[in-house]
């Protein structure tokens, strides 16, 4: 099976890799690029812990082939902080206790930061719909919603 040479931009930096066709995007990020902020949760495209932003859209990176992302721009949780300053959603999750065990948090941060790019003033319902593909077993989502509302206010 031939390997494929791919180029991607991860958090603004150009990266190259030679990958097997079957390598999943999440494994490219974690095991080839050694960025372990993106988590593998269920590995069946249900839980959303592996969410990254692919060309502007949050997607489950356990269900995308690395080779499909060739030429794409990827943002992972490591790319949210800018010049030592937390992204407003990161600040919101800290301030409003939007996490307990933290396993789902990278995915939650990616989905909600993408939401706020598209919608500066989401209603509670819209926030809940946006994170409906990201499962959290700890918080009951109440503080996650508050964290996103905090971030939205911050970004306005």
């Amino acid at each position, binding site marked *: *099976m*031939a390997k*494929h040479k791919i180029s991607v931009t991860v958090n603004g930096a150009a990266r190259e890799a030679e990958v*097997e*066709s*079957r390598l*999943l995007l999440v494994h490219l990020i974690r095991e080839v690029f050694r960025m372990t902020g993106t988590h593998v949760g269920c*590995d*069946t*495209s*249900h839980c*959303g812990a592996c*969410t990254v932003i692919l060309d502007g*859209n*949050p*997607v*489950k990176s356990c*269900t*995308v*082939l690395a*080779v*499909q992302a*060739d030429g794409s721009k990827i943002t992972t949780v490591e790319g949210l902080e800018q010049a030592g300053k937390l992204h407003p959603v990161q600040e919101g999750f800290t301030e409003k206790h939007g996490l307990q065990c933290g396993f789902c948090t990278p995915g939650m941060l990616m*989905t909600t930061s993408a939401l706020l790019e598209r919608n500066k003033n989401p209603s509670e319902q819209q926030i809940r*719909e*946006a994170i*409906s*593909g*990201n499962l959290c077993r700890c918080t009951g989502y109440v503080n996650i919603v508050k964290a996103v509302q905090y971030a939205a206010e911050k970004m306005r």
Partner: protein
Amino acid sequence: MIPAAFDYHRPGTLDEAVKLLSSHGDKAKVLSGGMSLLPMLKLRLASFAHLVDIGRIPGLDYIKEEGGFLKIGAMTRQAALERSELVRTRYLILADAVPLIADPLVRNRGTLGGNVANGDPGNDQPAIMLALGATFVARGPKGERSVPAGQFYKGLYSTALAPNEILTEVRIPAPPPRSGGAYAKLKRKTGDFAVAAAAVQLTLDGKGAVERAAIALTNAGLTPVEAADAAKYLVGKKPDEKTIAEASRMAAAKSSPSADRRGSVEYKKEMARVLTARALLKAVQRAGGK
């Protein structure tokens, strides 16, 4: 979970894609959004020696009304359908259904073409296409052909598409005046397939009686199930409480679900009846009836 090894191809044109499929026969599979195919490969429920990714072929991503049809390119993502003003204002049966498919992240990748071409009776859009009387356009080595949705589904994961054909467009006849459609779905949680779901598209005459109707069910058998008898029963009748109840009963009688963790056969059939009634009622209201 890692899929079994395969070769990945990314053709730049449809012709190139068809050529690749022709040379690899049933060892090759078309990769669209990958939201059904990749999980199946990862779970090793399926394996193909070659994947032909149509995701970068230009001209397969559009939603437009043209010549009396709503034409949707096969690579159109569910998220694009969800945001489409055209869908939201003119094709309410689709607007009902899309937000209930999988979850928002999956809808950013999953495509209409993949949903209808996969042949999974749990997918929502096949039944909707039956109700809408849609036609699927496929490209193969001999060129293009059209297959009515009603003749497309042959069995579980089995469709009228040959291994070297690619579904390129879904063509939905623009509904005439006094038409209404609705999709009603029961699911246990976000991301789940339907326990039962009903797709209804109908047109009323000037006096408020049903001029034509179509009813189809999701997850009610090995293929999407068209309840033609129930739809025929409605034609010429006022869609009131009594006729809607009878048509729903007839539709549910056509369903043959299997028991699983979503419920027993009896429960699913009963839910098919309830959801058909709800979809009929909503469709009638949307058509301007009472």
